[in-house]
C-alpha cells in the first residue's frame, strides 16, 4: 500500500504549501495562481516579497506549460506520461522555494544546460543587459516567451538557478529546477 504518511511527512518537513502533479493546463495555472495569491495574502507577506514570489511562480508555471516536448494532441499512454509535470512551493523560515520538474527530450538537455549555466555566471547588471538584448531582438518563438523566462527568474529571485537532469530512457530526461526567494 502507498505510504501516504511518508508523503505527508516529507511535505511537512519541507513546509510544502501547495503541490501538483499531472497535466499542466491554462485553467490549472489560473487556479494555482489564485490559491497562491490568497495564501500569500493570508500570510500577510510583505508586498515586495509577495510580488517576487508571484512573478517567479508565473514564469515557472508558464515554462512548464509552454516547454513541453510532447505533442499535446498525442493521446498515447507514453505521451501522457511524458507530458505530466510536477510543481511544489514551500516556505522554510522566511525563504520560499519553488520547485518544478518535467520531462524534456534528451537532445534538448545540452542547449538548456548551457543556457542555465550561462545565466548562472552573470552578475545582476549582466543579466539586465542580457534581458534587454533578448527582449529587443526580433527572433521570438511562437510560444511567445522567447527565452526570457529563465533570465527573468534569475533576475527576480536574485539567486542562482538550481537545476538537475536525470536521463530516464533513450528519449527523455527529467529536468528539475529549484528557485529560492527570500
Amino acid at each position, binding site marked *: 500500500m502507498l505510504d501516504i504518511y511518508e508523503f505527508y511527512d516529507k511535505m511537512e518537513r519541507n513546509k510544502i504549501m501547495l503541490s501538483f502533479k499531472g497535466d499542466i493546463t491554462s485553467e490549472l495555472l489560473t487556479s494555482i495562481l489564485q490559491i497562491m495569491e490568497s495564501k500569500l495574502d493570508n500570510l500577510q507577506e510583505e508586498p515586495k516579497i509577495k510580488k517576487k514570489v508571484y*512573478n517567479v511562480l*508565473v514564469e515557472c508555471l508558464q515554462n512548464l506549460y509552454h516547454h513541453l516536448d510532447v505533442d499535446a494532441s498525442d493521446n498515447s499512454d507514453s505521451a501522457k506520461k511524458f507530458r505530466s509535470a510536477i510543481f511544489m512551493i514551500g516556505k522554510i523560515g522566511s525563504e520560499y522555494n519553488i520547485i518544478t520538474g518535467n520531462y524534456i527530450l534528451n537532445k534538448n538537455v545540452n542547449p538548456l544546460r548551457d543556457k542555465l549555466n550561462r545565466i548562472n555566471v552573470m552578475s545582476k547588471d549582466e543579466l539586465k543587459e542580457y534581458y*534587454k538584448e533578448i*527582449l529587443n531582438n526580433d527572433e521570438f518563438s511562437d510560444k511567445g516567451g522567447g527565452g526570457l523566462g529563465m533570465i527573468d527568474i534569475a533576475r527576480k529571485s536574485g539567486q542562482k538557478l538550481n537545476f538537475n537532469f536525470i536521463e530516464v530512457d533513450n528519449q527523455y530526461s527529467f529536468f528539475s529546477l529549484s528557485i529560492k526567494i527570500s
Partner: protein
Amino acid sequence: METLLIEGSAKTPTIKFDAEQGIIEIKGRSIPENSIEFYKPLIDWLEKYSGKPKADTVVNIQLEYFNTSSSKCILDVFKKLEAINKGGQSSVVINWHYEEDDEDMSEAGEDYQAIINVPFKMVMVQE
C-alpha cells in the same frame, strides 16, 4: 475612430485606448499564456491610430504584474508609439507607473526606457 475597451481579468489587463482624447491606458496584470493573441487588437488599433493621431498622445501603463510573454508584446506597443512620435503628427509621452517599493517594476520601466526612443516618465505610486 472607436475607443478600444477591454475589461481586465485575472490574467489580462484593462485596456482603454481612446483616439478622441489621445489617451492610451493599460492597467492591471498581464500574465496570459498567449500574450500575442491578447495584444494583437491593441497593435491593430495603434496601426489605425497612427494614420490620424491626436496632437498629444498620453500613454499610461500601470501594471501590477506582467510575464515575460507579455514583455515582448508591450515592447511592440511601445515601438508603434515610437513610430507615431517620430512621424511628427503627435507627441507621445509614456507614463510608467510603479508602486513605491516595487523595484522590479521600476527596473522593468528602466529597461524599456533604455530600448525605446520616446519621452518616458517614471511615475511612483503610493501604495
